[in-house]
């Protein structure tokens, strides 16, 4: 009887939130504390969003939370941990093996122009947006979108799905890196020479026809089957490597950012050390400057090609690891007055710098390898000529090769034509543009075998790749674990260690797909479809959600509260118009390319005619179901959840006697100090007094 009165008393909190009715309240709070001022404010596009006030902490509550350090959310030990974690998440394997290839194939130095322009207009605004919204709403991706509007929960769920799918295959790549790392502790390196066949008569045929590095990668590492249909069975050595990869990840993520924050001191800084060592080593090798020159020689004609701009946009987007939800999570552990604008700019600059630095290092080594190949090719030709014509050694050198060949051709052209001399062209060796796993596991490993002290360089290189991959995995796993906790998938009583353990175990078991014989093809499939289209949709929805559903005005107010000044015209323009348009353009391009083009995969088939060239094979028809699951399910969950929720609301309205569900408001949930026990005991005492 008097309990209602008791509860309605103000317990001294400045908030006047009424925790009873979920939708009605008796003060209408305006975003700035004053009513809309004039027509221009009313005309600003803002979608209706009732109840937003109830779902978020207002600025005073945030300040209180900050000062009293109440609340049970984990926190960063210091700013450096946060910066290193974000840098580690953004800087990943793509900076090392995708950017250099794009740079070289799209006009070298000229590629910097679209890359930097799109970095400024697409990357930085999106990054700032994610940081700011996470820091303001202090929740993971699912929590943030549910808070902004319950109908936008789908965006959070989509982020979680994408993070999950990407974690699966990304850790398999780390498992491959670990396998190469394990095998680097021997001299000579196992991929430097072909093994001898069973009856000791010669080298293994598959190796002899291709090359030792190809053989080691495709046969001894992957044991790849010839087609994606052919499952090929589980490869036991890869299972061990997969277990070790997930084990290391579990140790680092066991308690969330408490343990991750310590691990990033090593995983985020070591790659830079190794890159510098490789740069110094690379510059002392013959041919490295040719490689760097080849990389950066600008070809301004490429700027007219729209593919260049679209590839640059896609690279900026994927390289920042946006839309995974991890960055929102990391930012939510910050103090409320952290300068997220400065952080976004700094991290973007570091990311761009790392891409360019890594490209320089990679191409110095590729230049060395190409020069070695060219020299080998030329010496082979010279030797053939010397042997055929019994000329003394040293008669034909690299300098006079062309003239001698010419003179011999004029006199004995028929013999020359029978010799099948190879054409040796340095540029063709340099532009054997390789990207992705081929760059790391074939091209670079071959270059390492030609350097003195190969095991040392091999160990350093694979440690660097391991650290790059692991620090990105921290963000991916964060993007899976925090939504799972927010969605209450696991019982609350389970400790954090058990939740992360169960997640890692499930991912490890599902990841066994990728250690089969056809695992490599599955991985390429996942990479093309799970990690591309859904992210673009999520990012676009994020921008629309924050700018138009949450409200750009409220967002500006929040930023004034958090960092002290209103974001300037650059941010306003990019958030409202420019960045969403760029995302839309990239999405339309990607979607149309995938839908119209016939998709195929490249397979290592020793029985094919063009072996050792990889063979293009079409996908079997059942693959389209898998592609739909990979790309369609996360993308469709964005509108799907909204529809599902609308249907549920509609059904709920029809039965008003349905039990009152958990109230979705702040003071019900946030246990600020001793409000709860206070209310309990005062209730009891009051009851006794008034009985």
């Amino acid at each position: 009887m008097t309990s209602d009165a008791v509860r309605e008393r103000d317990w001294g909190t400045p908030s006047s939130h009424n925790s009873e009715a979920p939708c009605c309240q008796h003060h209408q709070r305006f975003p700035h504390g004053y009513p809309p001022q004039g027509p221009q404010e009313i005309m600003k596009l803002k979608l209706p969003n009732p109840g937003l006030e109830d779902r978020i902490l207002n600025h005073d509550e945030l300040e209180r939370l900050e000062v009293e350090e109440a609340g049970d959310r984990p926190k960063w030990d210091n700013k450096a941990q946060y910066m290193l974690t974000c840098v580690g998440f953004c800087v990943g394997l793509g900076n090392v093996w995708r950017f250099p290839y794009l740079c070289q194939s799209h006009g070298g130095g000229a590629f910097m122009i679209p890359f930097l322009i799109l970095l400024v207009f697409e990357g930085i605004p999106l990054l700032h947006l994610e940081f700011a919204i996470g820091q303001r709403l202090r929740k993971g991706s699912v929590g943030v979108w549910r808070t902004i509007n319950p109908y936008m929960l789908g965006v959070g769920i989509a982020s979680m799905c994408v993070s999950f799918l990407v974690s699966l295959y990304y850790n398999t790549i780390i498992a491959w890196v670990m396998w190469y790392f394990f095998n680097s502790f021997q001299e000579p390196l196992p991929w430097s020479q072909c093994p001898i066949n069973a009856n000791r008569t010669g080298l293994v045929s598959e190796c002899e026809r291709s090359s030792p590095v190809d053989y080691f990668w495709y046969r001894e590492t992957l044991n790849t089957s010839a087609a994606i249909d052919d499952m090929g069975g589980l490869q036991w050595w890869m299972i061990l490597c997969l277990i070790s990869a997930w084990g290391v990840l579990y140790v680092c993520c066991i308690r969330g950012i408490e343990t991750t924050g310590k691990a990033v001191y090593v995983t985020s800084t070591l790659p830079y050390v190794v890159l510098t060592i490789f740069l110094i080593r690379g510059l002392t090798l013959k041919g490295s400057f040719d490689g760097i020159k080849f990389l950066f020689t600008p070809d301004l004609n490429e700027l007219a090609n729209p593919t260049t701009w679209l590839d640059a946009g896609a690279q900026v987007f994927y390289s920042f690891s946006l839309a995974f939800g991890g960055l929102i999570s990391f930012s939510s552990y910050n103090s409320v007055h952290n300068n997220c604008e400065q952080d976004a700019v700094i991290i973007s600059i570091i990311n761009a710098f790392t891409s360019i630095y890594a490209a320089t290092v990679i191409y110095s080594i590729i230049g060395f390898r190409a020069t070695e190949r060219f020299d080998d090719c030329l010496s082979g030709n010279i030797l053939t000529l010397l042997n055929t014509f019994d000329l003394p050694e040293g008669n034909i050198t690299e300098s006079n090769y062309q003239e001698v060949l010419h003179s011999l051709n004029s006199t004995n052209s028929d013999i020359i034509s029978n010799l099948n001399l190879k054409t040796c062209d340095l540029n063709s060796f340099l532009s054997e543009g390789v990207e992705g796993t081929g760059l790391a596991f074939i091209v670079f490993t071959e270059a390492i075998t030609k350097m003195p002290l190969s095991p040392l360089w091999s160990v350093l290189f694979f440690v660097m790749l391991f650290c790059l991959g692991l620090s990105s995995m921290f963000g991916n796993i964060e993007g899976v674990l925090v939504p799972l906790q927010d969605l209450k998938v696991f019982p609350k009583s389970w400790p954090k260690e058990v939740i992360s353990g169960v997640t890692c175990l499930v991912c490890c078991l599902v990841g066994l797909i990728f250690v089969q014989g056809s695992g490599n093809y599955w991985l390429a499939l996942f990479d093309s479809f799970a990690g591309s289209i859904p992210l673009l949709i999520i990012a676009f929805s994020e921008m629309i959600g924050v700018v138009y559903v949450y409200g750009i005005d409220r967002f500006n107010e929040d930023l004034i509260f958090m960092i002290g000044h209103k974001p300037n015209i650059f941010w306003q323009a990019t958030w409202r118009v420019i960045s969403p348009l760029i995302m839309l353009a990239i999405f339309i391009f990607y979607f149309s390319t995938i839908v119209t083009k016939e998709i195929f995969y490249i397979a290592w088939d020793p029985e094919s005619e063009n072996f050792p060239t990889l063979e293009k094979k079409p996908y079997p028809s059942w693959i389209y179901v898998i592609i739909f699951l990979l790309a369609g399910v996360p993308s469709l969950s964005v509108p799907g959840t909204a529809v599902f929720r609308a249907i549920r609301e509609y059904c709920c309205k029809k039965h008003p006697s349905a039990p009152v569900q958990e109230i979705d408001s702040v003071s019900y949930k946030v246990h600020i100090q001793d409000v709860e026990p206070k209310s309990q005991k005062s209730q009891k005492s009051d009851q006794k007094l008034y009985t």
Partner: protein
Amino acid sequence: MLAGVLLLIFLPPLVAKDLCKDSQDGFKVRLSIKTGLGDDAYEWNESEMFLFRSTLAYAMRKHSNQDTYTIDNILVCNDTQRVSFVFVVTSTDDPDQLIPKEQVELAVRQNKHRINNAFLLSDMTLEFMGIPPTLSAPIIYDTEPWLIVFGVVIGAVAVGIVALLMSTVSKKRRAKEKAAGLSEEDEGIVKENGTALSSLGRKEGVYNQAFSNDDRFTKL
């Protein structure tokens, strides 16, 4: 008379040359001294050829276990600037008869490393056309090196997981003990406001008659 003497002197080499040139039992040899030794390359001259013939004679001796082979049993021809030539081996009993190809091949194969070392060359730079180099035996490890490194890494991971889990468990236990200890302390200070009903239930609790619902004494 003089002609006859001259013929006698020059006939053997001429005959020898014919034996060498047209024979089926000869092997072509090719040396790539500059490629193999670079700046330390020596010049190919008669003395080096002498060494070659003597090493081949040595090889034949070892193979046939006959100490009768001499340098004169090894005939050389088709000498080129490339440093390549053809050689044949004559039999010790009959200088006009040649040792068959297979025998010579076996002899060379058995002693290839000695022949290589005499010239500071390798299988790539001292080639006998038609005799492929024997492949070196593959290195067989007792335990593969990668398994050792894997064991180290997995061991470190397991130790890390156990240590972290133990520290969590011990932290929780300490927190529980602290909470239990605190409520014991509270017993002395009568602090109704701070204790919930559940903690009172564990111990005797303070019996405060003012708030008691016990109506033992107020039976009507």
